[in-house]
């Protein structure tokens, strides 16, 4: 079996064609090869959610996905949420509601919240808490994060642009 394989993917709207070692995770590809360090590494076993990105619109723990599995996919990371310097409604709501303290889990929370709102534009508090239960926040901003998601849902602004 080849040590590397060519993959093509769209990352934050930009087409990327890369030769990737077959054992490299999507997380490592994003951080180490593409320089997109907004996606964070913590547990490396799919339990903490810090590395959450969108793969074809679905929230995925990028530490559990091989980069080659993302061949042909459209990837959105936290760097892809703001457009032309304008924060997405979710990003703005995170600031307004105090949903980010140390900030290390924030990119993953934002991506999971984004996917949640795409799937369910009008979630209840329990639905938000369940939807984001795979994203740990040790600073304990859970209520503020839920406030932010609720505010965006109630404003009808979706989860921000892709």
């Amino acid at each position: 079996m080849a040590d590397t394989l060519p993959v093509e993917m769209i990352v934050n709207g930009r087409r990327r064609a890369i030769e990737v070692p077959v054992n490299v995770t999507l997380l490592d590809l994003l951080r180490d090869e593409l320089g997109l360090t907004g996606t964070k590494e913590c547990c490396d076993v799919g339990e903490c959610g810090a590395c959450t990105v969108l793969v074809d619109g679905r929230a995925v723990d990028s530490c559990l996905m091989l980069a080659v599995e993302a061949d042909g996919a459209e990837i959105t990371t936290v760097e892809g949420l703001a457009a032309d310097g304008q924060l997405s409604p979710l990003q703005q709501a995170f600031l307004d509601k105090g949903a980010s303290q140390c900030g290390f889990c924030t990119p993953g929370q934002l991506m999971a919240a984004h996917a949640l709102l795409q799937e369910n534009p009008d979630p209840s508090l329990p639905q938000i808490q369940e939807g984001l239960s795979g994203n740990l926040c040790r600073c304990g901003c859970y209520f503020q994060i839920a406030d932010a998601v609720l505010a965006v849902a109630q404003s009808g602004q979706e989860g921000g642009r892709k």
Partner: protein
Amino acid sequence: MNAARIGDSPNRVGGRERVTGQQMYVADIRLPGTLQAKLVTLDCARARIISIDKTAAENLPGVSLVMTAADLPQPVPRFGPQFEDRPVLAVGETKYHGDPVAIVAAETAEIAAEAARLVRVEYEELSAVYTLAAALAPDAPLVQDPSLRPKDPLAGTNVLREHRVGWGDVDSEAADVVIDNRYSFPIVTHFAIEPHSFMAAPEGDGVAVWSSIQHPYWLQKILAKILRLPLARVRVVAPDPGGGFGGKQHTKYEPIVAFAALRADRPVRLILSLEESFQAARRAACEVHVRTGVRADGKIAFQDIEADYLIGAYADIADRVVSKGSYPGAGPYNVPAVRIVARSVLSHTLPSTAFRGFGNPQVNWAVESNLDEAARAVGLDRLELRLRNLARKGDAFIPFDTACDGDWQQTVRRAAEMIGWGQPLPAGHGRGLAVGIKSGPTTGHSYSTVRLLADGSVLVYAGTSDMGQGARTIFAQIAAQELGAPLDWVTVVMGDTALVPYDQQTSASRSTVLMGNAILRACRSIQEQLRRMASELHSVPEDQIVVENGIVRLPDQELTVIQVLKAGLGRMGGELIGNGESRKDAEPDHPLQGSAAFFEFNCTAVEATVDEGTGDITIVRHVAVSDVGKALNPLQVRMQDEGAAIQGLGHTLMEHYIFDDKGRVRNLGAIDYRIPTSMDLPLEMESDLVENGDGPGPYGSKGMSEGALLCVAPAVAAAVREASGAVIRDLPLTPERVWRALQERDGKEV
């Protein structure tokens, strides 16, 4: 333009970076030519190292270096914030599961991991102690080499230190009821979402070290000593930690990474896995024996407290945790007789260190729980008993310390009101209420430089670490308030010892008070300069000019700071520079070598139900009220209070380390060690604050980031008891433990 001032809740300064992924944590910083490092550890706790064969690892293509203790200066340097007991790499013997014996640096992390596996260590496992009982047994193997503390009568035991504090005479104080119980608190870990991260690179004739550390200047001092370099040749870069909670206060693997970088003459980077972070820092377990004497009228007669803290193999700051954490153990009450004996007990486990609450939650769990039993015994309402004993402002409730510095009755009454204390409860519901107190910083020293630039924008230099508590925002708000700049015209420079003046440390909820005062003084110095400027410009005596809140008031007109500044600087340009210093000096005769700068005071009240079938606890409501003096940013205060409360629910309900018979932690990492998720929260959480402007910080503020964690456990356990009758004195209150207590309640065998 953001006109936010003190008392407003502007968006977090640095928040935009956090929500866009631009915030650079240590692991996000990449230097060209960096080697990736991996630590080599053994699969047991205590072992005698017979030999280490590096050959296979060194021969692996891509490996740059493999270092063991033999490759370090001899004797191998030791370090530590309190005792210099920890070697840079294990010397002769490993002391705990995870104690590194070697470091490997290679071109990629993958090669480094492979090389670490190829380092052949021949070792012999030795008998070891992992519990208080084993460590205190008469024939226990010694954790620490007695020669490290010559002349210490305790050197032949595993007791690192014993701390005695008290007043009155516990043995002769009359009490109508004595409540005598034992309580335990488990080992828990910080679990910052950012694993500990380190990088070092040769820089000029010295070294630059990047670390996710809370105390960059303390690290600089330790590195300078170990590396035999002047402070000015040791640059510590400390980007915002991705969560600290005390676990990132003190030096860990920075020395070995620095040695590796200097030896390789290239940058070396060590990013710990979460599992390795679990082996780098944790809270001390504690067993507390408390005897509470109470009179029939509900007055506390005495508190007799013995607390044994299980610390690790190296002291780190753990012994200070023990002395300072047990010290206010009798609580915020006027108690005529108190005896506290606290011991730090060494064991062959990973070093314990500071963790939010700093040794207080352990004793608070026991003493506050015991007070509930005392109230029951004398037939008094649990809230009423507390109110009858609570210190009033100015009371010397700890005779040789700072007097009660707040209206604590107000805080407790507010929490009781919010939880509906005394109101009828639905069947199966119970309420609990507890108070927590923590001695604030006992010493401190902070410098700040503030520069008012020619256009009125401001640079604030502060060596505090913003690990999420929001120090940067508070500092910017102070400068904006004093100098009249919009908040987004204020930049706070932090995290680089080559740029920013000294700050002793970021701990004990000190920064708003200590660094805040330094910044305030620096701003006031600039205001003085503006006053002189205005005096010269307008030929008005200085004593007739007032500068405050960004306005320069002359007898006949008001000018903005910018108007005076621009006119005063003239065509040559320039800037005004203010320096501020704030210090709290040590008091050598004080039991803690310093009285409290302030007390953190919190009252937590909860309503809970218990599932009789599973033992599962549901927190229906959780109320936390803190006396903060003045909330400089109310939203950040709420975030810190609620975050602390949720962290407290972790050690209360679910978190604990499990060791096997070889002293290995069996639940390393996120799968087997559970912290609260969004599904483990109270159904409702509410926080409130008491503001009487009576703190020593800017505008009457006090520190507040730990208070709401201190007394979560006794409040929850009290609610569980009222809801179900289950009596539990060991944390965490896992469903299994609650279920067993329910069976005991019913007299069933389990």
